[in-house]
């Protein structure tokens, strides 16, 4: 009896060792693995439409062989085949896990971006990415980036959003604007300038899945002021000359001239009355005011600004001048915003999401009806308040 028990214990011990060894091999990770040197990790993809087909142009850095980036281009009928076709053309497997920026070319964004967008949404490997639109072909943009560092475009966008007044967009905003009703898609627009430098060229606004209107950088900043939490950026203002100031101005100019002894004969570059205000931080509030059939959008903006290089004719320490400067700037910003709103309204696009606001305050919601009958008749009233926080370190 005892020996039987001992042998049972012994066999149990051996079995447990074998079982644990077997599971050790499992735990060592027989999961699919990827070796980083053998992957084509792309950071930027450009999508175009050519002869009814989708084309993708991919830029991927080639870390192992040389420090140069490679560009490959391929065409297909659907986004998934596009990815595999890219693989056919490269020595390494193309992976999308580290992708940062999608560039939609002119032809593709005009034809509608839904196909690619829906594929991206379903792809779990894709993380938080940004999208941009271009008036050129996406292929040209990608080829232009070949000599630049791999993350150049995504860094350009990032700094531009953080500091230079481009409205923030990413996969989240794009997807919710695409599926959600009551708001239209907006994406930054990039292009090359005359010197072949890559620049951010305002904001492209979509109607449905198709691009419709591009607004300038200046307008895009106004849009950001009324829409984003981060409000940093510069807005340039041309101050109209104050009537009763003119005389004084002349006098001063004379004094100035006397001092400078005729330097004024040469015209200085730039506009004397034009300057930029630097927006630091602020708050915006958009409310809907319903009165019978009339819907008014009220926008309130409180902005803390820093002034740099105000015109010489303005003596900021004088209360009168201070008030004049403040009121005029407020008026200019409000007026420009109203102009922008009307422009958007005329083009039947709604990047602010007035539809969402309208929907949140009415029992019934019909997207089509809103954009056909209510939105075109909407009235806007913009109020801004500037708080002049700083004046720079100089005098």
């Amino acid at each position, binding site marked *: 009896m005892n020996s039987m028990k001992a042998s049972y214990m012994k066999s149990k011990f051996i079995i447990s060792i074998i079982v644990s060894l077997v*599971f050790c091999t*499992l*735990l060592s990770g*027989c*999961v*699919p693995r990827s070796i980083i040197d053998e992957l084509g990790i792309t950071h930027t993809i450009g999508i175009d439409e050519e002869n009814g087909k989708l084309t993708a142009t991919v830029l991927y850095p080639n870390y192992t062989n040389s420090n140069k980036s490679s560009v490959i281009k391929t065409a297909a009928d659907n986004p998934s085949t596009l990815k595999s076709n890219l693989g056919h053309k490269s020595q390494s497997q193309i992976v999308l*896990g*580290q992708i940062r920026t999608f560039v939609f070319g002119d032809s593709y964004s005009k034809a509608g971006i839904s196909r690619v967008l829906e594929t991206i*949404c379903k792809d*779990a490997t894709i*993380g*938080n990415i940004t999208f941009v639109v271009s008036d050129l072909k996406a292929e040209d943009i990608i080829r232009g980036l070949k000599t630049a560092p791999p993350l150049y475009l995504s860094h350009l966008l990032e700094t531009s959003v953080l500091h230079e007044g481009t409205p923030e967009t*990413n*996969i*989240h*905003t794009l*997807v*919710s604007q*695409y*599926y*959600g*009703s009551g708001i239209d898609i907006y994406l930054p627009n990039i292009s090359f300038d005359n010197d072949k430098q890559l620049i951010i060229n305002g904001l492209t606004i979509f109607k449905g899945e198709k691009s419709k209107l591009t607004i300038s950088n200046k307008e895009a900043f106004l849009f950001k002021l009324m829409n984003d*939490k981060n409000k940093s950026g510069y807005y340039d203002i041309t101050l109209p000359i104050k009537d009763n100031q003119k005389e004084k101005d002349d006098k001063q100019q004379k004094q100035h001239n006397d001092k400078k002894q005729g330097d004024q004969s040469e015209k200085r570059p730039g506009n004397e009355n034009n300057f930029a205000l630097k927006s630091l931080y602020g708050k915006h509030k958009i409310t809907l005011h319903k009165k019978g059939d009339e819907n008014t959008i009220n926008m309130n903006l409180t902005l803390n600004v820093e002034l740099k290089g105000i015109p010489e004719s303005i003596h900021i320490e004088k209360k009168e001048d201070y008030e004049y400067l403040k009121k005029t700037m407020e008026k200019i910003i409000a007026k420009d915003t109203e102009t922008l709103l009307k422009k958007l309204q005329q083009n039947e696009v709604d990047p602010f*999401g007035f539809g*969402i*606001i309208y*929907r*949140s*305050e*009415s*029992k019934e919601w019909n997207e089509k009806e809103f954009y056909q009958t209510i939105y075109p008749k909407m009235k806007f009233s913009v109020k801004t308040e500037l708080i002049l926080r700083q004046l720079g370190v100089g005098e």
Partner: protein
Amino acid sequence: MKNIVKEQFLVSTFFTFYLVHSSQIGIGILSFQREVSKNAQQDAWLSVIIAGISIHILIWLIYQTLDEKHNDLVAVHDFCFGQVIGNILSILVLFYFLLSAFAVFRTYIQIIQVWVFPTIKTWQLALVLGVMIYYIVSGGFRILTGFSVWGVIIPAFLLLLLYFPLRYMNPRLLMPVFNHTVKDILLSTKASVLLFVGFEWIYMYYPFIKGAKKSQKWAHLANGISTVLYLIVLVVSFMYINQDTLQHATWATLFMTKIIELPFIERFEYIFIFIWILVIIPTLCIPIWACTRILKRITNSSHFKPKISLAFFIIVMIVAATFIENFVEVDKLGKFISNAGFYFLYIYIPFIFLMKLFRHQLTKMLSKAQ
């Protein structure tokens, strides 16, 4: 058929809080937003509150059903229906518990396949998970209780992660309030009941709690906190993702974590998925432990080892998991278990309560008559 557990296997009264809370928070929180908001849309938060309150009533019913003498479901079945019918019912409940563990098991494998390793085979993951379940459950009920502490702590960290989506929130998406019919809100309530499933395992671990009668307040507290947690996640999701997009987002919570970008971790959702295994462990292991317990109680013999039945249940789950091949079937399984859970909670629990009450009165009257 009295059922006394030795002192050294008991857990303290307040551990009921961890047990109930961690059984309720599980795989559901990764994806519940879509189902819950299908009917009531932005008013679905109301449905979650209604469901939470109704669960409080059910917890009360469970604690009324169990007492010193009949301290688990098998004993109650035995008391109400006699041994044969009672045991049949107990086995049916065993199937339900096993199925609810299996649904979690298969869905988690599905999530790993969809999000992280598309080429991995179901049996590989099932085997690894199965070994883990065997290891934990064979440790006994006290080990399970220890794991359920993790099931409370980690979901609490989820609240910190919600800071990131909060930066993009739009409170207007919660409005207009109450523009749905009562029917819509109730349908959403039905969908959100599944979130709270898990507390009914009290039926089996009740005798393992020291001073079990006093543990009721902890169970209620746990359910209250689950409700609040679900509510917070739901409201943040609603403010972050609009209703139309939500219907396209299968795993809305994972979709929300996509926005998280830390300087040292670019893709947070991968880490999130793997940490979540610790949250899922209680919802996976407690029902399996309950199954082995039911089997032990109805066979009521010392030579039938719970470890063998445990291995048997796990093998059944692994084999069954490999038979479910595509995502449609996983969805169907989820729907089925959600319906089964609904009926178990709202029909079976009150039914057992009434039967127990009836039987109790009957014995009283009979003894008086004598």
